[in-house]
Each structure stands twice: as structure tokens, then as C-alpha cells.
């Protein structure tokens, strides 16, 4: 019963808004705001399953490749910079500058070197995503408890063991926080790079639909991008919960809860 009430509170407003949208747009003559009914019809036709194969999956593949490169590189470089202080202080200005550069500003230059195809999109996504991971990974390494460092020293752990058993676990919560931010801007970078680049994808589809006066297609594209962003975020949360289960347990324990 409690669960039912909880779910009811969570879903009533979205449902009301959908119903309002449905009826308000039912006889819409405004070409930019077609009836919701038409949009859904069109979405069904588009995304099950041809469009998914042709546009959504390639988009996701590019995002996955670029994002995973960024997370891996950001984590590794972050561990290095976090561990080697003189290197961190020497590179800090450049890291700060690059992470402050709006990712989209990198696109013309990336396209200069890599053209407008797949590689351009993957490089753009990776370039945009790596900074939050990198900065959080550096901070994560810095936040390792001094006692743990002492333990590692007195047990004469090798560098590999330190990374595996001390640095990575301590930095993991922060790295995940960075990776979550990176995912959100990764989806933006994916969309924007596809709008500029050639060769399909959800971003390309959406922009193309609007220039082709296909307004139900445009709305379907926007909704699909929203759904993709939402699902990716939920997936990420699930992965984070699994990987960091020990961390949440620890936090709950230290705060006096039982788990």
C-alpha cells in the first residue's frame, strides 16, 4: 500500500501533463506543434525498428566508444596526476583551461583534422567527456585517507597494488560522479556533432526533419533523444549502485544505519 501511494505520487503529474498535451494539441493547426497523437503514431512508425537500427544504434555506438575512451583516459591520467604532485601542479593551468573551453568550440578544429565522419564525432565526444572524469579522478586520489597511504607504505605495496587496492577504490565514488556529468554532456556532444557532421544519427535525423518540414518527425527525434538521455542516465545509476555498493554500505554504516 505504501509503495502504491509512492508510485501514485510519482506518476500523477506526468500523466496529467500528457493528457493536457494530448487534448490541447488534438486539433492543432499550428504546424510546429502537431497533435500528440500524430507524433506518437510517427514515432511508432519511425523507431520500431528501422529507425532504431539506422539512426539510434549508430549514435549509441559512437557515444559508447567516445565515452569509454574518455572515462578510461580520464581515470588513468587522473591517477597519474593525482599521484605525482609536481606533474599535477605543472599541468594544472592547461587542464583548467581545456576543461573550461565549451566543448562545442572544439568541433571546428576537430573537424579540420578528422573531417566530418565517424572519427570526428567520436573524438569530439571523447574530448568533451574526459575533463569531468579527469578532474574528479585527481580529486579522488587526493582524498585518499593519509592513514591508508601510511599503511600502503609500511606494507611496502607495489605501485600496481596501491592503484588496485587503495587509489582506485578510494577515488571510485568521485570518478563515478565525474563520469555521470560526462555522460550528460556526452549526449549533448553526440547530438551536436551529428548535427554538424554527416552520416546519420539521431542528431542528424532531428535537424534534417526540421529542414525537410517534417514536424512530426522533428518531435519524434526530440522525444527519442530525451528517452535515450533518460535511459542512459538510469543505466548509469544502476551500474554505479552495483559497483559502489560497498561504498554506500560503508557510508550508511558510518552514519549509524544498518545495511
Amino acid at each position, binding site marked *: 500500500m505504501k509503495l502504491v501511494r509512492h508510485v501514485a505520487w510519482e506518476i500523477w503529474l506526468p500523466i496529467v501533463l500528457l493528457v493536457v498535451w494530448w487534448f490541447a494539441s488534438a486539433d492543432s493547426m499550428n504546424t510546429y506543434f502537431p497533435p500528440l497523437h500524430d507524433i506518437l503514431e510517427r514515432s511508432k512508425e519511425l523507431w520500431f525498428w528501422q529507425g532504431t537500427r539506422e539512426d539510434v544504434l549508430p549514435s549509441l555506438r559512437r557515444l559508447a566508444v567516445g565515452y569509454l575512451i574518455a572515462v578510461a583516459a580520464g581515470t588513468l591520467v587522473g591517477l597519474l596526476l593525482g599521484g605525482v604532485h609536481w606533474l599535477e601542479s605543472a599541468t594544472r593551468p592547461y587542464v583548467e583551461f581545456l576543461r573550461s573551453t565549451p566543448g562545442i568550440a572544439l568541433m571546428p578544429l576537430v573537424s579540420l583534422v578528422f573531417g566530418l565522419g565517424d572519427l570526428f564525432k567520436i573524438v569530439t565526444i571523447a574530448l568533451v567527456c574526459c575533463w569531468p572524469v579527469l578532474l574528479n579522478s585527481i580529486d579522488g586520489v587526493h582524498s585518499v585517507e593519509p592513514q591508508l597511504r601510511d599503511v600502503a607504505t609500511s606494507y611496502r605495496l607495489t605501485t600496481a597494488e596501491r592503484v588496485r587496492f587503495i587509489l582506485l577504490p578510494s577515488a571510485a565514488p568521485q570518478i563515478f560522479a565525474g563520469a555521470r556529468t560526462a555522460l550528460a554532456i556526452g549526449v549533448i556532444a553526440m547530438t551536436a556533432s551529428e548535427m554538424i557532421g554527416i552520416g546519420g544519427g539521431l542528431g542528424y535525423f532531428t535537424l534534417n526533419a526540421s*529542414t525537410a518540414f517534417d514536424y512530426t518527425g522533428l518531435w519524434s527525434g526530440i522525444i527519442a533523444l530525451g528517452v535515450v538521455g533518460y535511459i542512459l542516465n538510469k543505466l548509469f545509476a544502476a551500474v554505479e549502485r552495483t559497483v559502489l555498493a560497498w561504498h554506500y554500505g560503508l557510508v550508511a554504516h558510518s552514519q549509524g544505519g544498518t545495511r
Partner: protein
Amino acid sequence: MSISTTPAESRPASAGSASRGGRQRLVARPHLATAGQRVGALVVVLALWLWFARAKGANADFPTPVEAVRTFAHLVTTSAYWSGVGETLLTAVMGFAIAAVIGIPLGMLIGISRRAQLSTQFLVDFGRNIPVIALLPLAILVLHLGRTMAVFLIVFGAVWPLLVQATYAVAQITPQARQVVRAFRISPLERIRFVYAPSMMPFLTTGLRVAASISLLVAVTAEYLGRVPGLGVAMRDSSDTDPHATFVYMLTAGAIGLLLNIALVALQRRVLWWHPSQRGKVR
């Protein structure tokens, strides 16, 4: 979900815990060695840049450091450069301000009631995960090309972190604090000044920082893709004919981002000087 699992933005203290181990050692270092590292790093970066411009970027006319400096020296004397900077800043700041005016009060209202949080959870979660650029084609159709369109997109992108952080800020005020102010009959004005505002500030400043970088990002993107006057359009127009200028515009966008970030961090430090995350930092 966004309430139970701490979103990335809502960890104001994270950066602070970092300074314990590393920074102190850095501060103690003699200045000479640090300066040496700086120069060394600069040399390495310039060498890498030169190598890249010669090797991979040669056919793409990627500028070498010297060429970049020369182009920059030329561009800063043109009015087009400064109007681009001004337009971008104006668009970004307008969007950012509107997002703050909408997002913070709305987030606070939602944060007051557990039911309001539950009711809006899905909408907020969905809204913040829509890649804001997806709305660009629609925004162009409805609002046409121009600043209004860019500002709308910025508001849509930047409002979420502010809203989520404001919700979080209100929701985390402990019942004890509320009971204490009631028991001591502290006046509403003083409650806000001495209890609620300080406890919300760390969350709000984090939200503001995230929102500011989103604002700049979306401003440049909207300019680039939607041909709104500003750095983005300058970048796009020059990319075919004059890659060196494109590069300088990119550096300019980066510099604006950096300055914005520095300004907000300084503000955060000033407002939150008492907070554990800011203590012990070199001022």
C-alpha cells in the same frame, strides 16, 4: 531517484577534502622549483602543439603557436572580435540570469514538500536528461534565428542543475534546525539570514557553477548551429577560410569559460568562507 542517489553536482564538499594530502606539500615547495616546472610544462606543451600542427594538422592548416599568436594579435585589433565576445557574453549571462530566477525559487518550493518532490521527480529527471541541443531545430522554427532562441535554449539547459540543487538545499535542512529556530522564536528574517541561507548556500553555489558553464556551452553551440551573432558564428564562418582565426576564437571561448569559472570559485570562497570545503585553501 535524484533525491536518494546524490547527483554529481550536489557534492560541494568533494573538492575540499582533496586539499588535505596534496596541496600542503605543494605550498611548502620552494618557488624556484615550481617556476621551473611551469616553464618546463610550457615548453612541453608548445613542443607538442608544434609537432601536432606540423604532423597531423599540416594539411588541415592547423596553426602553429607562432601563427596563432600572430592571428590573435591581428584579431584583437578588430571590432568584429570584440563584438563576438560581447554578444556571446550577453547571451550567456541573460540565459543564466533567467535560469537562476526561475530555477532557484521553483526548486525551493519543490524542496519544501516531500510530495512535491515525488510529483516532479520524473519530470525533472526527464527534463534534465534531454540533450538541450535536441531542441535547437524546434527553437529555431518557433523563435527564429536570434538571441531569443539562444536564450531560451540556455534557460532550458541551465535551469535543471539550479532547480535540483535548490530542491536539495531546502530538503536537507534538518528538522532539528527548524525546531531550534521555532523554540527560540527567531524572527523569520533572522531564520533566513542565520539558519536557512547558510545551510543552503553550498548547494546553490554548486548549482550556479554548473549552470554557468552550461550557459556558455549552450550559447556557443546555439551561435554555431543557429547562426546567432557571437563567437560561435565567428568560429563557423572562419573555419572554411581561415582556420587560424577559428583557433583563436576557440581559445577565446576557453578563456571566457576559465574567467567565468575563476569568478564563480572566488564568489563561492567568499560566500562560503566558513564551510569545511573552503577552509585551509590558499587565498
